[in-house]
């Protein structure tokens, strides 16, 4: 089963991180990623930029949707990176998540990635098949 490890940091967490020597941060994250690779569990992962100029939010409360710069302002915890791992149990996902080299002010939200078996009862639903088709196209394989 697949899990997504979603990294979230508060302002405090990000400041603590910025105060650390860059080399040290890179080395700790590099070692963590290497462990994931060597264990054969890492499928994907990336960090997310937090520069204001690159990011925006689309709010669907109104039609047409409203686009604003973001995701700043009242954001308490910024989503700033993720990993997707494939493991054999929830406990194994927890083991990997707790090994992540993060400090105070940082959290990992760990979510199981759904697969078709979650929707087995609806496998013949035209809407679901359509969704799969779109997913296939968007990934452009």
């Amino acid at each position, binding site marked *: 089963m697949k899990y997504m490890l979603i990294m979230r940091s508060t302002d405090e967490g990000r400041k603590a991180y910025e105060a650390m020597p860059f080399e040290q941060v890179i080395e700790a994250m590099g070692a963590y990623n290497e462990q994931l690779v*060597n264990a*054969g569990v890492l499928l994907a992962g990336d960090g997310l930029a937090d520069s204001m100029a690159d990011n925006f939010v689309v709010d669907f409360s109104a039609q047409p949707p409203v686009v604003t710069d973001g995701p700043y302002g009242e954001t308490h915890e910024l989503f700033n990176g993720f990993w997707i791992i494939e493991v*054999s149990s929830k*406990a*194994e996902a927890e083991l990997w998540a707790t090994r992540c080299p993060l400090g105070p002010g940082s959290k990992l939200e760990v979510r199981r990635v759904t697969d*078709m078996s979650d929707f087995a009862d609806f496998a013949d639903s035209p809407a679901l098949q359509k969704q799969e088709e779109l*997913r296939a196209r968007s990934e452009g*394989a």
Partner: protein
Amino acid sequence: MGGGIRRSVDALWRVESAHIVGTLVRMTGDVGLAEDAAQDALLDALRQWPVEGMPRNPAAWLTAVAKRRVLDSWSRSRALDDRYRRLAEDLPDGHDWQPIPDDVLRLLFTACHPVLTREAQVALTLRLVGGLTTEAIARLFLASVPTIQQRIVRAKKTLGEARVPFETPEPAEWKARLGSVLAVIYLIFTEGYAATGGDRLIRSDLAEEALRLGRMLTGLLPREPEAHALVALMELQASRFAARVAPTGAPILLADQDRRRWDHSQITRGVAALDRADALGRGRGPYALQAAIARCHATAPTFADTDWGRIVTLYEALSQLAPNPIVDLNRAVAVSMVEGPDVALAAVDRLAESGALRHSPLLPAVRAELLARLGRGDEASREFAAAASLATNVAQREALLQRSRR
């Protein structure tokens, strides 16, 4: 709480056992002793941790306790020799233990050593490197626990008797030994992927386990193109998992599969792995060629719209590198898509005359398919019936019989 600890310990074992057992084999030179000591340490952990809590570094704790077990067994069974003294001196540092990735690699080469039968290599790899219990291996292979247990015990004994050293192979034998590791991992995969028996979810677990071992190998040997190629091949084949069996359990042929149900992120990963193999610039081995064929299928919008010409060329290269009648048969299928069923039929007939694949349903099934496409219905029916009589698996036999009645 107890159940929680149990699950955490199981997860820890899955992740760390290869490092722990690897360390112990390096120190003792004895796979059997190392594994027994590690299992004893695990039992100690299950007794102590629920009461005392998990230690700060659980894997180091397990390694230190297992080392002590080894020393105990040595002091009972033989005089204090140098090895004993060295190990004893090493003990106080137990908690600073750091895993050494090369131990896992050495363990993998040991588990896949040529003194063992392929069956034994598979069981030992899953047990030592995959960290699976005997029960889990038995469940995955639809075998009884005593059968697997006996296989593992015998394999450890064979390794001991042959005095197989705990090391990565010398350059002269590297290629053959790596080939054995790749073959074991691929066999675990195909057992999960191709077998239609048993619970489908369980079979996909086996394929996932093989993928994990394959990815592990590419982490350990990033400069080996065939390791990346094997991962590519497995990702590309596994991407079709959801689409290849009908709700009734009947297999769905490639031509009839709903391509929307293929796992497209897995295809992307497979393509990337093949690119990594190619980027090493050392040419394509058998796994890379098979992965390249799988990529042609995985990236084709429809069955008809597949680059069959390229597939024919790839099968020809594969046949040169690793001659195999199944490859020739697959090549004939690809030829039928490019040059027509008549040309392909001639190739299949030559293959039949050579006596290859005499006991496999594959050859008559392909022949039948080609005859049907040529409008020779009666001959096709007879060939489908012949194929059905050779089929070993019920779902496959049913599907072939159905075709023969048309």
